[in-house]
């Protein structure tokens, strides 16, 4: 079982308290764009995923804890969490990820 650091509780808690919520930083198209979007663009938003083997940005939901969504960088080959950060924060740069690994 993974131990996951919730950036809102600021605590490491067991995986069973959390629900995985898919790849992070996929923005839902805004209302005006939706009218002009092609099928390919919709497909990209709905279905296409990076499915990265390596450092993956993803959402987690602390549903049996503080009930907040947050983002994480996790290595999908080792399942090791590199960092977690609050919703609304930008995707960490490579430099930030490197620093978090230390």
């Amino acid at each position, binding site marked *: 079982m993974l131990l996951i650091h919730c950036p809102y509780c600021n605590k490491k808690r067991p*995986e069973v308290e959390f629900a995985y919520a898919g790849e992070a930083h996929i923005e839902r198209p805004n209302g005006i764009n939706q009218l002009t979007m092609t099928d390919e663009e919709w497909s990209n938003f709905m*279905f*296409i*995923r*990076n499915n990265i*083997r390596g450092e*993956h940005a993803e959402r987690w939901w602390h549903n049996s804890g503080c009930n907040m969504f947050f983002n994480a960088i996790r290595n999908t*080959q080792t*399942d090791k969490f590199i960092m977690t950060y609050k919703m609304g924060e930008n995707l960490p740069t490579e430099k930030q990820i490197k620093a978090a690994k230390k």
Partner: protein
Amino acid sequence: MKFSAISLFANALSGHKKWPSQFPNKDPKKEYDVIIIGGGAHGLGAAYYLASKYGITNVAVLEKGWIGGGNTGRNTTIIRSNYLFDESAALYDHAVDLWDGLSQELNYNVMFSKRGVLMLAHNVHDVQSFKRHVYSNRLNDVDNQWLNPEECKEFCPPLDISSSRRYPVMGGALQMRAGTARHDSVAWGYARAASKLGVDIIQNCEVTGIRRDSLGNVAGVETAKGYLKSKKIGVSAAGNTSVVMEMAGLRFPLESYPLQALVSEPIKPVFPCVVMSNAVHAYISQSDKGELVIGAGTDQYTSYSQRGALHLQEHNLMSICEIFPIFKRMRMLRSWGGVVDVTPDRSPIVGKTPVGGLYVNCGWGTGGFKATPGAANMLAYTIKHNEPHKINAPFNLDRFIGGRLIDEAAAAAVAH
């Protein structure tokens, strides 16, 4: 050499010390007509059918580890075709048709045992949904029948059908043509048969890049053993399909999840069939070695680590003990995990890609083993003709743009 009663007898006389190796370990040639990436049973099968049915023998199968070491060797070997939709029924039933004669065709015993798969209904919704499956299957000429609780008990004696249980058995859908097979034998059998027809099986040869020509079509692959030219490449890389496709600049509607299974210590024959329960969330069968083979759903997060969390196994075993209290004191022998590539509609993708000369067979999610011969044949057909067969045509990549999904997720099982 051909396996037969005579060869078995002759080798018994020499103490089974003179069996030749089943296929040679080869170094790659510089150029192939077709390269298959992924030496699981799907990839080896595709190479075999290319050589045997479609007359292309200058084929290489590239495997980064050892053949059959991925999901082929990590599944729970269940074979069935009782899928709801017409497209799925056709695809999976085609596979079962090929399973039927596979041991003879390959001259290799894949131990396909049609012991029947029983899917239990525990509530009114299950009953309605499974009966719908049965009727739909019958319209598609797929064998499936409805059993009442007493008939279920008769078919599978370890079952407890008393109405006092938390999840009472209200009936079940039984597919008699379904069953299990020996997974390793499928990989080895295809490898041996393909190799005999001239296919090169190259292990420890990871693909690191896909080169494309000036028109954008594939030109060859970079591998751990150097650059290999080929104008046609079939990708059969299961959980790692997204990684391989990225080499060709494609993003796929796939996510890779860990899927775990476990076996108990071996015991005498006690369990005659395969039983699945979607409501309680587990399935079970007994291998020929005597181990109870148990599985359920995937872990919740994407991962390539080939292992999952312990609490999922606990949940899985709780479900088994709920349905079969007689197994409460069994001890588990080992557990393992594979990486399964799951599509948004839980149906596979078999066909062409936007890149010329690049073909794919992926997205089988938690249920690829049962489809092995069918998927392999469809990939081989598509590579040969540069057009999909009518069976795999609906399973194209474009359905995620056009919206014609084959949404088995809502109807299908926990475990496929």
